[in-house]
């Protein structure tokens, strides 16, 4: 036991019920730790994470006045929070405990070499002690959060989320760019698999929205700008002019009868027309008329051309003086529910959508069926109808590889409905796979087959026109009989896939939301956070996140509102203290760092850099950009990393090779744990150091590591597309390139520095990479000390060149 010093560290080595102690000599490690500087006590226990183990720590903190703790046990990703909670209970900051991972990253992968494993455990422990020595006793920080939500998009997802939030007592702004809410669901005829009338089940929900006192419904309004962050989003929206007074209009239709203009009806997918002054559709909410400014000849001619509607309107509701209105408000959280657009079939020229009148999209068919059921048929479909599946889906030729999930079912539904209304129809569905996976789906598919709908397995190659009649010919291989079908059809329906709606792009840009590979907005975690996004306080609901049917959309809307409520109900939200900060005395306001942050979290005022902690994600990319070492990262400070590196490299024997592995928290560290859990063996000559992102490791740190004795450095990070930090891959590549250049200049093989992007399932990949690098360093031999020493000399000039000189 040491005398009183400024830092008092307590070390605890866990047996982990044999998992560790069967390989690593726990007693030896415990004794070794006790000899380190600043370590006041060093104990061991069979299960540190148990109540007893935790109580031990809490008691010792009080009794021995410990102010920092090291627990050598399993992975911090496994039990890290347990020990952080324990420290909080003992009245210490949760951030002064450090774990040494001697289970997943030592005892388990090195089960075949207890002696070397014990040696490595000592190194890991010493490095952890060094890191915790310089840890900051940060407080758990929080920011306030209120009860205001913006829901962007008034389709079924937006409507459901708004109602849930409104009912829960939160203030909702529902912004919809069309003149009515309802979205695409309002256009559907029936819904599968129950064949409920879509409008009938949607209408009551739509009607609930304006009557909910907590919802501010803003239709015909578009988002112009959003600034800020969770708890403080400043929204600027533009309400487009309707030219009809909403309070006076009763939608009687008198104006429509006298309007001379005719334009395609968008709700009817262009199959019919309506006048320039119109109601969006017959169950629109709000149920008011509006004027299409571009079509109205009066508005286009400076109010000189017409005025029939003013004359006809008995309520005096027409107002040609109407102007766009700018609306601004603040919200705490945002739900993005901006929905989908269908694939434009003109892109698939072989199907002749542009050429042939009787080739339709599924959405057009929905309207045709609705109109026919109402008694206003708009088209004669004929007897033989063919459905082409996977149009704009599962197709590399149009860049849409994904499956659109709902088309198999909606085609089955449309076919069923068409058979219902005329049983003599001869209906074929041409598919590649029939996906009827949901509740009631298989049964529905069987019922369609019972009705005589024929399912042919083959993807249609081409649609031809006929020279002698208006029919079209489909050419397709029936893969089950290996016949080529080339036959005439009266009508062809293209089962078009769903894609991200075009209007979403602007929202995604404003909020810096990531997109998945399939082009939809990306959820924060595919399994555990399906409605969160990479931006705090912003959630997704509905088809904006990926193609899905109505029940899944409603479920997601409920999930998103629940996540938002959970966040806002706490009144405050925690800020992860892994944020950048500035050593103000070292900063000279050169502004080089501003560009380096992909989230615009750095600004400079009064010649000193400032970090916006709410925007900062803690990737550390900015640190390498500072020639003054003024930038740093909480919980992974420059000093801490330096000490960790130094201690990880001490005690190297003659001829021994040691490789430092900087593993990013999201992917590589997790992967290393998986490798250990799978008991895959790899070389003991590698020491893993945890970092929030590979971009945290600056060129200076890398070169210092080489100087201090590293024979090789391995940086592991996520693949670009799965990384939670934008551009971290790029930053690492740049850093690595700079260091490799310097290594080469000094005659050191640049291959000693390796950068690999991992997917968390690449277990063998991790093992091979580790072994390869160590083998390489062993084969190449040690780096002469003289060369090591030269690496860091004049490092600022090498990295920053003129900039550094200029700013000196």
């Amino acid at each position, binding site marked *: 036991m040491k005398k009183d010093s400024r830092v008092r560290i307590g070390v605890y080595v866990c047996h982990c019920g044999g998992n560790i102690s069967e390989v690593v000599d726990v007693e030896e490690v415990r004794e070794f730790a006790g000899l380190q500087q600043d370590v006041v006590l060093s104990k061991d226990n069979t299960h540190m994470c148990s109540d007893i183990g935790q109580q031990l720590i809490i008691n010792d903190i009080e009794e021995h006045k410990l102010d920092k703790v090291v627990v050598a046990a399993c992975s911090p990703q496994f039990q890290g929070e347990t020990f952080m909670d324990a420290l909080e209970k003992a009245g210490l900051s949760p951030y002064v405990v450090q774990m040494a991972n001697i289970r997943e990253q030592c005892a388990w992968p090195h089960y075949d070499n207890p002696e070397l494993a014990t040696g490595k455990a000592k190194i890991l422990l010493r490095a952890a002690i060094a890191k915790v020595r310089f840890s900051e006793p940060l407080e758990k920080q929080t920011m306030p959060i209120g009860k205001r939500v913006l829901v962007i998009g008034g389709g079924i997802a937006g409507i459901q989320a708004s109602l849930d939030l409104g009912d829960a007592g939160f203030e909702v702004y529902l912004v919809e760019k069309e003149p009515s809410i309802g979205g695409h669901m309002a256009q559907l005829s029936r819904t599968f698999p129950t064949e409920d009338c879509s409008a009938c089940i949607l209408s009551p929900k739509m009607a609930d929205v304006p009557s909910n006192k907590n919802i501010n419904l803003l239709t015909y309004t578009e988002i112009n700008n959003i600034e800020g962050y969770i708890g403080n989003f400043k929204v600027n929206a533009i309400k487009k002019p309707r030219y009809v007074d909403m309070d006076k209009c009763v939608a009687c239709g008198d104006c429509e009868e006298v309007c001379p203009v005719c334009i395609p009806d968008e709700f009817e997918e262009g199959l019919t027309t309506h006048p320039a002054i119109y109601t969006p559709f017959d169950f629109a909410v709000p149920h008011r008329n509006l004027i299409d400014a571009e079509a109205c000849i009066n508005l286009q001619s400076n109010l000189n051309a017409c005025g029939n509607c003013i004359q006809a309107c008995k309520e005096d509701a027409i107002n040609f003086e109407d102007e766009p209105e700018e609306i601004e408000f603040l919200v705490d959280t945002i739900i993005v529910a901006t929905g989908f657009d269908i694939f434009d079939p003109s892109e698939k020229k072989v199907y002749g959508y542009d050429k042939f009148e009787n080739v339709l999209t599924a959405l057009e068919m929905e309207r045709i069926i609705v109109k026919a059921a109402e008694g206003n048929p708009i088209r004669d479909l004929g007897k033989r109808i063919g459905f082409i599946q*996977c149009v704009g889906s599962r197709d*590399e*030729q149009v860049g849409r590889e994904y499956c659109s999930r709902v088309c198999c079912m909606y085609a089955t539904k449309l076919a069923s409905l068409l058979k219902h209304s005329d049983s003599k129809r001869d209906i074929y569905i041409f598919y590649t796979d029939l996906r009827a996976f949901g509740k009631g789906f298989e049964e529905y598919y069987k019922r369609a087959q019972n009705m005589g709908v024929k399912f042919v397995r083959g*993807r*249609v190659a081409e649609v031809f026109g006929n020279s002698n009649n208006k029919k079209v010919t489909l050419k397709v*291989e029936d*893969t089950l009989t290996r016949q080529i079908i080339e036959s005439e059809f009266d009508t062809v329906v293209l089962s078009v896939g769903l894609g991200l709606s075009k209007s979403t792009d602007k929202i995604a840009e404003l909020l810096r939301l990531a997109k998945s590979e399939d082009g939809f907005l990306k959820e924060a975690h595919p399994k555990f956070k399906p409605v969160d996004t990479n931006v705090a306080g912003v959630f997704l609901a509905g088809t904006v996140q990926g193609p899905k049917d109505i029940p899944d959309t409603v479920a997601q809307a409920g999930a998103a509102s629940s996540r938002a409520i959970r966040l806002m109900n706490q009144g405050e939200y925690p800020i992860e203290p892994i944020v950048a900060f500035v050593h103000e005395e070292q900063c000279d306001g050169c502004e080089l760092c501003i560009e380096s942050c992909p989230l615009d979290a750095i600004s400079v005022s009064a010649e000193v850099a400032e970090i916006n902690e709410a925007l900062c994600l803690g990737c550390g990319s900015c640190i390498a950009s500072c020639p003054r070492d003024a930038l740093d990262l909480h919980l992974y400070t420059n000093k801490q990393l330096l000490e960790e590196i130094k201690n990880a490299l001490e005690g190297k024997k003659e001829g021994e090779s040691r490789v430092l592995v900087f593993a990013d928290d999201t992917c590589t560290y997790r992967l290393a744990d998986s490798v250990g859990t799978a008991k895959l063996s790899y070389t003991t000559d590698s020491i893993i150091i945890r970092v929030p992102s590979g971009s945290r490791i600056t060129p200076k740190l890398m070169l210092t590591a080489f100087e201090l004795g590293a024979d090789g450095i391995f940086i592991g990070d996520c693949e670009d597309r799965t990384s939670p930090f934008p551009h971290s891959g790029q930053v690492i590549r740049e850093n690595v390139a700079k260091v490799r250049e310097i290594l080469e200049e000094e005659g050191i093989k640049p291959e000693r520095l390796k950068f690999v992007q991992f997917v968390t399932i690449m277990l063998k990949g991790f093992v091979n990479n580790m072994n390869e690098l160590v083998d390489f360093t062993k084969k190449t031999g040690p780096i002469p000390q003289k060369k090591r020493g030269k690496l860091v000399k004049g490092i600022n000039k090498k990295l920053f060149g003129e900039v550094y000189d200029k700013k000196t």
Partner: protein
Amino acid sequence: MIKKLKISNKNQEFLAKVEELSGEIITKCDQCGICSGSCPMVPEMDITPSQMMRMVQLGESEVMESKAMWLCASCFACTVRCPRGLDLSRVAEALRQMKLRKAIDHIDIKKLPEDEMERLPQIALISGMRKFTG
């Protein structure tokens, strides 16, 4: 007569060989049939293009006895339409080459009738010889 297929190691070897020669990952084919629907020569074939792919996938080397691979005109209609991004013309070429490189020519130029030889332009003869002889 319905065929019985018994899978052995030879099947895997055949598939690997065709994949190597063609440079295409044949297991990617999901048998959608667009290639067959697009092929201009399919009315004359004994097996369809997608069937040819299927047989290669399962490693049935009898596919090399088919007429289909010799009827391929290398017109790439299948290639521009395959939703999986596969190039069937390369697979057909690989199968042809596996025969031709064993010095088994598909046609004998000497047996072409004289009037044909007079009419045929060089481009037809050269391309034919490139595709049908080793």
